[in-house]
C-alpha cells in the first residue's frame, strides 16, 4: 500500500507520452505541410510554411485536374490494384481450399513452394520478366502488371487462407457433403463466407504494395495512356518542379486516397500489413 502514490505516478507514463507525442509530431509535420501548402500561393509558402493559408488557393488543384492526365493515371492504378487483388483472392482461396482438403505429399510440397515466395523479392527477377513481357507483347500496357502482381500476392494469400480454412470446423461442411453438395458449392456457400476476415487481411496486405508500386510500372510502361498514378507523379513532379503549390497538390492527391482508407479502417490495415509476422 505504501508504494501506491509512486505506482500511480509510474502508471502515468509521462516519459512515454512525451516521446510518443514528439514522434507523432515528426510524423504529422511533413504531412501537414504537404496539405496546407498545397492550398497556398507561391509566396505565402515561403513566408509562412506552417500555418493555415491566409488566402486559400484552389488553382493548383484546378490546374492539376485540367492540364494533366491525372484522372487517367488514377483510373489505371485503380484498375490494376483492384483487378489484381480480386484475382489474388479468387485464385488464392481456390488453391488453399484444395491444399487443405487434399492432403498428400504433392500438396504439401505445393504449399511450401508458395510459402517460399513470401520472402523472395520479385524485383530480382526483373530482367527475365522484362524479356517475358516484351515477348508477350505487353510492353507499355497495364496488362503487363496483372500477372506480376498476382504472382506477388499469392504466397501471403495461400499462407493466411490455408490457416483459416483449416480452422473451419469439419461439422460445418460435413452436412453439405452428405447432402451431396458439390465441392464448388461448398467453396462458394460455406468456405468463402467463413473466411471473409482473412480475405480482408490478404486484400489489405496487397493493397498498399500494389497501389504504391513504382518499380514494375517504371520498367514496363513508357506511354502516357498506360501510366499508373505514381509514374504520373514522377512526370508531374518534374514538370511542376518550380511551382511548389502544384507539386504538393499532386503529392496530396496521390496520397490522400490511401490515407483516408487507412484512417477509416486503421485496425485492419495494421493487422493486414503486419500479417504473418508473429505466427511465422
Amino acid at each position: 500500500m505504501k508504494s501506491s502514490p509512486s505506482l500511480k505516478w509510474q502508471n502515468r507514463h509521462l516519459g512515454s507520452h512525451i516521446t510518443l507525442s514528439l514522434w507523432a509530431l515528426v510524423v504529422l509535420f511533413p504531412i501537414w505541410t504537404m496539405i496546407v501548402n498545397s492550398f497556398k500561393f507561391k509566396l505565402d509558402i515561403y513566408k509562412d510554411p506552417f500555418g493555415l493559408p491566409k488566402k486559400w488557393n484552389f488553382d493548383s488543384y484546378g490546374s492539376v485536374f485540367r492540364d494533366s492526365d491525372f484522372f487517367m493515371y488514377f483510373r489505371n492504378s485503380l484498375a490494376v490494384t483492384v483487378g489484381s487483388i480480386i484475382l489474388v483472392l479468387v485464385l488464392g482461396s481456390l488453391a488453399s481450399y484444395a491444399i487443405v482438403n487434399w492432403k498428400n505429399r504433392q500438396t504439401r510440397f505445393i504449399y511450401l513452394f508458395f510459402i517460399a515466395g513470401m520472402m523472395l523479392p520479385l524485383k530480382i527477377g526483373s530482367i527475365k520478366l522484362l524479356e517475358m513481357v516484351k515477348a508477350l507483347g505487353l510492353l507499355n500496357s497495364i496488362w503487363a502488371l496483372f500477372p506480376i502482381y498476382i504472382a506477388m500476392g499469392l504466397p501471403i494469400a495461400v499462407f493466411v487462407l490455408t490457416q483459416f480454412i483449416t480452422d473451419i470446423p469439419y461439422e460445418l461442411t460435413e452436412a453439405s457433403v452428405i447432402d451431396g453438395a458439390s465441392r464448388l458449392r461448398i467453396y462458394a456457400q460455406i468456405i468463402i463466407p467463413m473466411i471473409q476476415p482473412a480475405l480482408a487481411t490478404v486484400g489489405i496486405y496487397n493493397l498498399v504494395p500494389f497501389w504504391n508500386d513504382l518499380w514494375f510500372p517504371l520498367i514496363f510502361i513508357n506511354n502516357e495512356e498506360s501510366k499508373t498514378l505514381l509514374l504520373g507523379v514522377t512526370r508531374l513532379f518534374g514538370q511542376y518542379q518550380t511551382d511548389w503549390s502544384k507539386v504538393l497538390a499532386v503529392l496530396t492527391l496521390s496520397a490522400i486516397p490511401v490515407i483516408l482508407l487507412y484512417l477509416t479502417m486503421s485496425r485492419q490495415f495494421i493487422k493486414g500489413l503486419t500479417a504473418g509476422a508473429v505466427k511465422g
Partner: protein
Amino acid sequence: MKNRKLGQYTWYCYLVPALFFYAVFMAWPLADSIRLSLYSASGPAGAGRTFVGFDNYIRLFTDPDTSARFWGAFGNTWYFFFINMVCQNVLAIVFALMLSERTMKGSRVYQTIIFIPVTLAILVTGYLWKLILNPQWGAIAQILTKLDLKELVKPWLGDERYALTTVALVSSWQWVGIPAMMFFAGLQNIPDELLEAAEIDGASKLGKILSIRLPLIKPVIGIVTILTFVNNFNAFDVVFAMENANGAPSYSTDLIGTLFYRVGIAGQHPVGIPNPGLGSAIATSTFIMLMAGVVGILGLTKSEK
C-alpha cells in the same frame, strides 16, 4: 472407391490457376535470372546471346570500373541497412515497449499515427522530404534559421557526406510503423502472470524489459531483421525519388537496387544500353547473399525450446 480416387484429382482444377501464375511469373523469372547471369549481353530480343561462364561475375567483382561501382553500392547498402537497424528498429522496440504497457493511455491513437507513413508511397515520401530538406526554401532550413541556428543548415541531399544518411533516415521515418506493430503484437502475447510474478519478486521496469519482455520477443526481432535486410537490399524508390537513379551526388547514395536498375534495365551512362547478363549477375549475387543472410539471422534468433 476407384471413382473417389479419380475425384481427388479434380482438386488440380482448383490448384492449377494459382500455380500457373506463381510458377510462370515468380518462380521461373527468379530461377532463370541465375542462368542469364552466365550469358553475355544480348542483342535485341535476346538474339546473339552466348554462354560466357562466370565472366559476368569476374567482371563485376574485379573489373576496375565495374567493380568500383559494385563494391561502392554494396558498401552503401550495408550502411543503409545499418542506419535502418539502428534508427528504425530500435525506435520501433522503444515505441512498442511504451505502447504495450497495460496502463498506457491513448495507445491506439499513437499506434494509428506511427503507422500512417507506411501507407504512403515511398516515392511520395521521398519527394516530400526532398522539398522539406531543401536548404534554401525547405521547412527544416526555415525552422533552423528562425532558431538562429543557420550554420546547421546543410545541403543534406547535395553533400556526399550527409546524403546517404539522410536518405536512410527518411526510409526509417517511413517504415518504423511495421516493426513497431510487430514488436507490439509480440509483446502483447506475453502472459500477464509472468510480468506480475516478476513484479512480486520486486523486478524494476528496466529489469522486466531486459529479463522478460525482450528475450520473449527474440523471434520477432529475427523476423524484423530479415524483413529490413531483404527490403534494404532491394531499396530503389527512395533514392530514385530523393536523388536519382545514379545515386547522386557522385554515387554516394548508389545502392544495389539503383545499380541493378542502371546496369540491367535502363542502361548505364555513357553507353545507355542495358546489359542483362551483368545485371543478372548483380541480381544473383544479391539473391545468394539474401538467402545466406536469412538463414543466418534465423539461426541466431531461433527461440530456445
